[in-house]
């Protein structure tokens, strides 16, 4: 069965500093990987996803994540954060068990990113 571990529950950083939010997963089959962002008192928004092709995927607001199959990781990075990036970030994984299997998303526990001025 799949599981997702976000190694840091909270990450405080200063504005314009780089940040990395870590995500590791475990699965015995092929996986697809997602990062969602949740701003305070709002629902989740898709930030970026890896389905196939290049292992480095990017979002429109400067975040990127790299799928590392050997390390079973999908860490999220941004070279320079803004105050507006303050939010909770969720890593999610779905397994490809073949056929018409339902692609259940399993979420990590979330990482709260706080950007200080």
């Amino acid at each position, binding site marked *: 069965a799949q599981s997702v571990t976000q190694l840091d529950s909270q990450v405080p950083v200063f504005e314009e500093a780089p940040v990395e939010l870590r995500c590791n997963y475990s699965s015995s089959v092929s996986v*697809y990987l997602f990062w969602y962002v949740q701003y305070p008192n709002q*629902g989740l*928004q898709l930030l970026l996803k890896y389905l196939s092709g290049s292992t480095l995927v990017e979002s429109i607001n400067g975040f990127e994540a790299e799928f590392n199959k050997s390390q079973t990781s999908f860490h999220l990075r941004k070279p320079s954060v803004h105050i507006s990036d303050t939010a909770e970030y969720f890593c999610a994984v779905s397994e*490809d068990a073949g056929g018409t299997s339902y*692609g259940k*998303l399993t*979420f*990590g526990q979330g990482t709260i990113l706080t950007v200080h001025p």
Partner: protein
Amino acid sequence: SQTIHQWPATLVQPVGSPLSLECTVEGTSNPNLYWYRQAAGRGLQLLFYSVGIGQISSEVPQNLSASRPQDRQFILSSKKLLLSDSGFYLCAWSVDWGPRNTIYFGEGSWLTVV
């Protein structure tokens, strides 16, 4: 474009009272619909999903039930709320089926059971 509406946004209910959270999706036909719960410090847990009218699958045993009376309407209910039902409930939808599909979330409903 597709949009998802969920209400009420905030709800405070006494223990033992009933619950009804409603969700509708606009701009798409025959979506897959989901109810998730986000309890404090516990991430997101899938409660129910539906691939069509009247078709409900439950992921975990609980005090809640779901119904899909119309193609784009999904309702989460309880006959008698428990304190442990408190949390942030999120309705979500997707177009495709299978592990590659992207799930889109509504704004959520805060439920506090007192």
